[in-house]
């Protein structure tokens, strides 16, 4: 789960990482109130999960109520690369002497945690990495050992952080590592991490991605849900705990496992069709999950045929078949369904489907055969 900046700052605060005081506003009136509470000059910032907010006019410095009103009116509803701004974060403007960068993430190659620190913050770090790689200092951290204050201080020094900011940056690094590990973040990034003329170091932005797999030990994450930017189809799928991504084509895809789902997309595209979505049922999906998947696909009016590609391992094909039969007894499907079942209990699954004698359900033996059949159905529909 990607957090919005204001959520990331709330999360940072739990781990003692200093941020500017501020508040959230969903309307112009609230924005004026929050700006007055923060104290002028204040910064009004669009809350969207996309880079380049500043360049798009999504961040404004305001000196009085009138300017706060104008900024809020301008930014609320602004379209930033397809993300429409619905919420603002307003905080007291910080005096900035220097801008740094700090982050923790997993290095999948080394299978260790990775700290990255740079004295060149405030800009796109991928650009710094490309043009001036030496400006980013990296440190691998074994999870068994963690990172000490002294290591953090050394890392900050090696990155060329100013003398007066060293202790502040080192202290933030230790806390950011706790936020990253104890807080189960896949990414915890501060850009920029600023030094003020008063010699204080604090986070001016917050980019946090939480590891959904760790949700069971973080009841506090509930507060972050329900405000995401998903489209209608994606929101419905999320409610049903399906791994769904909306695409633009006409073949609705349901598969079990991310790899097989991706591969189904590949095959459909290669035999001349186009996928309307990626949908992974996950492992061990029962009849209810299968029924939910058909329901989600059925809400998409782009879909002209549904391709169900199941290779049972932990998922049992008889369960999948029951789900299809159940779903079709309660949901009026708008399009035919091509089904391929293989693996665990496949014979039983095919028998359940055959016995139910469902209209608009076609059973194919192989993955490529099923993809071809689905695309033929789309083509037949187009030629009518």
């Amino acid at each position: 789960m990607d957090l919005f900046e204001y959520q990331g700052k709330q999360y940072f605060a739990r781990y003692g990482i200093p941020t500017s005081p501020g508040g959230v506003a969903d309307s112009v009136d609230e924005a004026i109130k929050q700006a007055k509470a923060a104290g002028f000059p204040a910064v009004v910032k669009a809350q969207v999960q996309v880079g380049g907010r500043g360049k798009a006019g999504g961040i404004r410095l305001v000196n009085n109520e009138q300017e706060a009103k104008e900024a809020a009116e301008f930014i609320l509803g602004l379209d930033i690369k397809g993300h429409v701004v619905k919420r603002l974060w307003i905080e007291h403007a910080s005096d900035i002497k220097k801008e740094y960068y700090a982050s923790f993430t997993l290095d999948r190659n080394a299978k260790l945690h990775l700290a990255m620190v740079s004295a060149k913050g405030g800009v796109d770090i991928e650009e710094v990495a490309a043009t001036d790689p030496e400006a980013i200092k990296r440190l691998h951290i074994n999870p068994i050992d963690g990172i000490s204050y002294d290591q953090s201080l050394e890392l900050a020094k090696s990155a060329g952080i100013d003398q007066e900011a060293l202790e502040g940056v080192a202290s933030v690094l230790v806390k950011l590592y706790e936020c990253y590990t104890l807080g189960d973040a896949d990414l915890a990034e501060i850009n920029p991490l600023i030094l003020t003329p008063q010699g204080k170091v604090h986070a001016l932005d917050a980019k946090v991605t939480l590891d959904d797999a760790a949700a069971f030990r973080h009841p506090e994450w509930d507060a972050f849900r329900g405000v995401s930017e998903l489209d209608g189809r994606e929101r419905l799928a999320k409610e049903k705990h399906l791994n769904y991504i909306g695409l633009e084509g006409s073949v609705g895809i349901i598969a079990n496992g991310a790899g097989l789902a991706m591969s189904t997309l590949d095959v459909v595209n290669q035999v001349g069709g186009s996928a309307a979505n990626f949908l992974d049922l996950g492992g061990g999906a029962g009849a209810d999950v299968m029924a939910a998947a058909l329901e989600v696909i059925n809400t998409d009016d782009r879909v002209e045929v549904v391709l169900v590609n199941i290779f049972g391992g932990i998922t049992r094909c008889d369960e999948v078949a029951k789900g299809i039969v159940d779903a079709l007894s309660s949901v009026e499907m708008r399009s035919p369904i091509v089904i391929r079942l293989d693996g665990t209990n496949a014979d039983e699954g095919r028998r359940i489907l055959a016995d139910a004698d469902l209209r608009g359900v076609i059973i194919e033996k192989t993955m490529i055969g099923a993809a071809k059949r689905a695309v033929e159905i789309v083509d037949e529909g187009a030629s009518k």
Partner: protein
Amino acid sequence: MSIFVDENTKVIVQGLTGSQGKFHGLRNKAYGTKVVGGVTPGKGGTDVEGVPVYDSVQDAVAATGATASFIVVPPKFAPEAILEAAAAGISFIVCITEYIPAKDEAMVFNVLRRNYPGTRLLGPNCPGILSPGKCNIGITSGDIALAGGPVGIVSRSGTLTYQALNELSLKGVGQTTCVGIGGDPVPGTTFIDCLAAFEQDPETKAVLMFGEIGGSDEEKAAAFIKENVTKPVVSYIAGVTAPPGKKMGHAGAIVSGGMGTAQAKMDALAQAGVHVARNPTEAGEIMVDIVKGL
């Protein structure tokens, strides 16, 4: 021959008394795998359809001489179960558990690497290992495999591993061993570990390798193949047509900033002399031709 396991491998199932553990543990046993015991704390002394259950891995190892463990427990308990198995002297651990937090995975991997270098972990979030006719540890349906070699399979994503077996078995091409390494961020066993083992195995004459977008493990495998693998390798990378910036599953399968694309992986593999297919069926067809020419 097979890699990592064979017909003599003695296996215990951690979580045998749970519904998934029972279903898959007993199915592995029915396949012919030497499933010699189960472990569930507090249920020692009972049995699951004749398979004795022990309170701890240590007890199970002492009583049965097992060297491999199949872990089928929920994500909350899986990290501890893996470390318990390693501490009890198990040398080959298969963990199929999905949705283990990345921090726990990273911790477990590094504890194994530092304290138990002789222990191999396969997974987590993997389908397991299957050596047709000899040993099946995991959740793969044994009837989709075909014994007699000559192809070794290594695949990242679970269900795509079954697809790989299916493509070969349907065409009458058997397998020596099929290893599903799992698509999680910190897999215990990598493509390279499997490629090295297949290269050493005299019965394996060719290798089928299925990868997917995201990360750089396939690129690393390509570099390894170029230097170390003399046997023919056929590959397929899932996600050739995946849109960038969309995370396709828990696997961390994502194309971002031009990194981890299927094309980059396919190019790297092709440059290493690997036969690169565009889909699983094509990969199977290429392998059939290679096997015919052996």
